[in-house]
């Protein structure tokens, strides 16, 4: 589905990621873990096209998309749910969702996904006319994920979906990620909640100072001493 080959990216000429290579197969959940500021978000942003590449290449479904602008990548099925949700706070829940489906010209398909969202998260259905900014943090996160789904992605990238969400709702979020995979969507997940992320992930990558330092199946990484020490605090 996705092949990331030795990409590099920087902010104001200060490199944030130096050498990242990832491979995602269709239908997988892949987790990207690592400490603060190690370049996880930057990786996702670079794949999404928000950050320019200094080197390396990105292949989506076998095609090189390194030079494709960010909004085009959405049309090709690559969608990022960014850090901090980035909803359109003064637009309604429904408008937010409709914008998620901006690239889908098929109205019936849009309607269908919308229905899925409202069925899965009844709150969103109840509040479809409410301004997105007035939802609670957890609800906002649900909305952000549903919005990402609206464009019928093949690959969904989630940046810290459990960030700032009350513990009670965190479980719900991880359940939803698995639901998404069941719809045949490949998921690339960045999480601080390393334990839960690796639990649901098929495979995982550990990133340190902008480089992949380890990779393996979710279970392997969970069992790895180094990982346990560095990221699970055990």
């Amino acid at each position, binding site marked *: 589905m996705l092949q990331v080959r030795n990409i590099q990216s920087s902010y104001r000429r200060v490199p944030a990621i130096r050498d990242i290579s990832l491979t995602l197969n269709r239908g997988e959940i892949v987790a990207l873990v690592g400490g603060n500021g190690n370049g996880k978000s930057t990786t996702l942003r670079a794949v999404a096209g928000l950050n320019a590449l200094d080197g390396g290449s990105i292949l989506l479904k076998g095609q090189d998309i390194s030079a494709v602008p960010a909004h085009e990548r959405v049309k090709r099925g690559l969608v990022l749910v960014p850090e*901090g949700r980035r909803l359109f706070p003064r637009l309604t829940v429904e408008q937010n969702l409709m914008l998620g489906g901006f690239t889908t010209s098929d109205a019936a398909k849009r309607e269908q996904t919308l229905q899925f969202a409202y069925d899965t998260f009844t709150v969103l259905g109840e509040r479809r006319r409410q301004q997105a900014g007035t939802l609670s943090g957890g609800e906002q996160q649900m909305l952000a994920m549903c919005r990402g789904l609206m464009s019928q992605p093949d690959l969904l990238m989630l940046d810290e979906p459990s960030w700032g969400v009350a513990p009670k709702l965190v479980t719900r979020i991880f359940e939803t990620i698995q639901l998404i995979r069941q719809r045949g969507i490949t998921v690339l997940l960045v999480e601080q909640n390393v334990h839960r992320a690796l639990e649901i992930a098929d495979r995982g990558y550990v990133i340190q100072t902008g480089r992949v330092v380890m990779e393996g199946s979710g279970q392997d990484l969970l069992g790895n001493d180094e990982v346990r020490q560095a990221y699970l605090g055990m």
Partner: protein
Amino acid sequence: MTTGTNSSRKMAGTAALLALAAILPLAVTEPSQQNFLILILMGAQMGVAWNIVGGYAGQVSLGHAVFYGIGAYTSTMLLLTLGLTPWIGALAGGLVAAAFALAMGWPCFRLKGHYFAMATIAVAEIMQILVTNSDALEGAVGLYLPMDQSGWGVLIFLSKLPYYYVILGLLVLTVLVSWAIERSHIGYYFRAIKDEPEAARALGVSLTRYKLIALTVSAFLTAMGGSFYAQKEMFIDPGSVFATTISIKIALIAILGGVGRLTGPVLGAVILITIEEYSRTLFGSTGSGTDMIIYAAMIILVAVFSPSGVLGLLGDLRRHLPGAKPDTVKAEKMEIRP
């Protein structure tokens, strides 16, 4: 602000520049050229004064002409009615402008960004209308300074040289004030207010107080510049000292050089006034608008190619010359929304 060696190098540079400025009129003797230099110094003085509130404290005023006009009118009225020397008149003008700044800043500082800028335009425009319709100030007719007097007492001179040194002195004063502010806690507070006003408050910084300090000091110095204008041109009317075009020019000078930097406005004045004067003298006589086209094209080019002012551009060049390549995606402010 930075390390000792750096600032002492800066000092040396400034001293050299000052020395150069002091002897420049000895080389440039033609009055219209001296006049040109005076215009630059006047622009620089206004820009540096504006920079205190618009640059350091980040409160973008587009109504500074109101202080300029108050300065010009106060000293001139005092000279005409009481025969008071402009030396005192200019101080009085500064004080009146400062008082006015306090009165206008109090309500206006509740506004942010473009709203504040617009409110300052409104204040200046209202003031212009009021003065235009004030009989006591001779309304739209304007005020003439006496042509039959001259000398240091009345600050009117037949030659350009004294004007040059007076405005140079005023510029040096303005830069010194600005420099002292930049180095003191007030300068830090200004920048804090500019960046994150709420955070500054949490650290005990009173926004109102410090914004008022910025505006008041800036107004005082701008008004002195206005008094100088009256002394130099010897005729003032509301349109020539209260106009919004003056406010915008003042801001442009600072922006052009680099906002929030001590010497930015000086550089800005050199560039802007030069473009302005030369495009007009070279092309203005055609009557086909060519001078405006050239002037405008230069402005746009500067805005496009050095958005953080010429100083910013120079800094960028210096830092990144070897193998420099522009950022394609600028790091947008990473804002996390709850």
